């Protein structure tokens, strides 16, 4: 029986590192890349007789993530100990939230070729990260710099039905978390990590199949691949009369297969109990409201607004909201210029190109929204030509100089006055009486030739629109 007779059922658990300066329960730094164990304290080393103290900002960020994902925020939540023995876990337990997490419910909305979909969240809880192990020769080396770093775990309901949807879900989730400043979205460095619970069931089945948990999925491509090969493995197993064992499996990207992690087989008895060293986490009146008020407009809402109220295409809206700082700067420029489409064109064209070329971010841009507005006005008023505007923009980007100063310095101002234009036109007409005849004989296309001639005389600075108008007037006699 083929794979088509089965549907895959996927639930995702995402661990996202919160962008704090210090760890969840101690003042040790969360900075990445120091010498091993440089960023440790008595708390994250798991020394006896010390007590954890909760980092306020970590909780604020977790609440912010919860609000952005439409969760209910629990006024009272609880810390728990999750026990297992592994050398990257100095205390022998991880402090996490179990029975009473900080955020409940919520959802992630994402686009698919079949349209918009929403997958519900079970919960978001706060927990500390473990340390890092490096295997070298006959030894394993323990680095506890990461131990105690604050994470949120975002748990979805098993509502995803394809690997493609799982990837879209993750991208949308990452977009939101990065947008609201909770997480840096980096899969490779492990600050945004995903585990996938995968099972298969026949289309008419009413209960889920046995699931396996997949780990080591550190790129969107691997996630898609891992889910697909795992689903295929389940189908083949079931079709040949076997059963799926519930277990944790590691994805091997080199071989494109998943394999059992035997070391974790009987590690699933975590003996959770409430953390006696920490009181329940109790929010005060107004805590959630003040975080809600500071929440920025979210990317999907902003995209929708760009289409409905700025009149941009869905594609433009997507490109302009790929990055929050870029989008925020775009908003400020639109507010200054009072029109969206021309600003959008500069942002998606020249600005993106120059940012890319100079490897800078929009935060480092030297010009102000008012200066870009001045440039747009200069184009609109015919002060400079289209190609001239590009030159001005490049200079504006490089130096942040005043637009009028750039125009003057580069001599880019167009000749708009009829006087000099007419003078050049009369010269051009006098030089080619044959072509004037030709025009009057019905060959009106020849006006292009004259525009070129006039431009040449004006050193390319004539206003082409006005030249055209005046030429036609003259030629018609």
């Amino acid at each position: 029986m083929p794979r088509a007779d089965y549907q895959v059922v996927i639930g995702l658990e995402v661990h996202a590192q919160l962008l704090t300066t210090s760890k969840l329960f101690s003042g040790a730094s969360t900075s990445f890349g120091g010498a091993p164990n440089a960023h440790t304290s008595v708390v994250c080393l798991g020394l006896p007789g010390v007590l954890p103290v909760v980092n306020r900002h970590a909780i604020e960020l977790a609440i912010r993530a919860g609000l952005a994902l439409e969760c209910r925020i629990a006024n009272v939540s609880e810390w728990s100990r999750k026990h297992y023995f592994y050398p990257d876990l100095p205390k022998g337990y991880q402090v996490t939230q179990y029975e009473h997490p900080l955020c409940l419910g919520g959802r992630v909305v994402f686009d698919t070729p079949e349209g918009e979909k929403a997958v519900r969240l079970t919960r978001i809880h706060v927990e500390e990260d473990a340390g890092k192990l490096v295997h070298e020769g006959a030894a394993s080396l323990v680095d506890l710099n990461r131990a105690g770093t604050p994470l949120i775990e975002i748990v979805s309901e098993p509502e995803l039905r394809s690997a493609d949807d799982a990837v879209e879900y993750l991208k949308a989730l990452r977009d939101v978390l990065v947008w609201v400043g909770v997480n840096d979205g980096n899969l490779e460095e492990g600050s945004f990590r995903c585990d996938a619970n995968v099972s298969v069931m026949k289309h008419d089945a009413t209960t889920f199949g046995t699931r396996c948990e997949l780990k080591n999925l550190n790129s969107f491509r691997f996630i898609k691949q891992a889910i697909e090969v795992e689903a295929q493995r389940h189908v083949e197993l079931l079709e040949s009369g076997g059963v799926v064992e519930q277990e944790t499996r590691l994805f091997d990207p080199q071989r494109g297969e998943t394999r059992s992690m035997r070391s974790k087989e009987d590690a699933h008895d975590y003996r959770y109990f409430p953390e006696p060293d920490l009181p329940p986490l109790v929010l005060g009146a107004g805590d959630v409201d003040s975080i809600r008020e500071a929440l920025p407009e979210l990317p999907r809402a902003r995209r929708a607004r760009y289409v409905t109220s700025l009149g941009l295409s869905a594609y433009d809206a997507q490109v302009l909201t790929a990055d929050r700082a870029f989008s925020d700067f775009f908003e400020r420029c639109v507010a200054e210029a009072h029109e969206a489409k021309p600003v959008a064109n500069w942002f998606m064209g020249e600005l993106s190109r120059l940012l890319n070329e100079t490897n800078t971010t929009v935060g480092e841009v030297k010009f102000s929204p008012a200066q870009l507005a001045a440039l747009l006005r200069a184009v609109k008023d015919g002060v400079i030509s289209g190609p001239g505007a590009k030159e001005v923009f490049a200079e504006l980007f490089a130096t942040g100089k005043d637009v009028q100063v750039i125009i003057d310095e580069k001599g880019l101002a167009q000749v708009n006055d009829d006087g000099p234009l007419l003078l050049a036109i009369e010269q051009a007409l006098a030089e080619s009486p044959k072509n004037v005849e030709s025009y009057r004989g019905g060959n009106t296309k020849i006006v292009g030739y004259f525009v070129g001639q006039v431009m040449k005389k004006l050193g390319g600075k004539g206003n082409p629109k006005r030249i055209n108008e005046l030429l036609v007037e003259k030629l018609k006699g």
Partner: protein
Amino acid sequence: MKLTEQQVLHVAKLARLALTPDEVATFKNQLSAILDAVDELARVDSATTLVAPAGSEGLALLRQDVVQGEVGTEAALANAPQVAGTSFAIPKVLE
């Protein structure tokens, strides 16, 4: 609550303890007695809703997000039986 030998062995395995048959018997009794004592708590009405301890509410009570109290690699590694560079070196753990 009477624990079975199997439960004792399971807990011992989770705790990475190798128990002799005599110890299993001893701990079976001791752990059962501890659980009986803890069972006393069952008489308390333990609602599943959390109750906030008085005076503990509000994010303002929590620690500010500033770096302080790092001990440095030397102190961090002072008790380590074996060190490589500034890492704790342990017998190889295979995944």
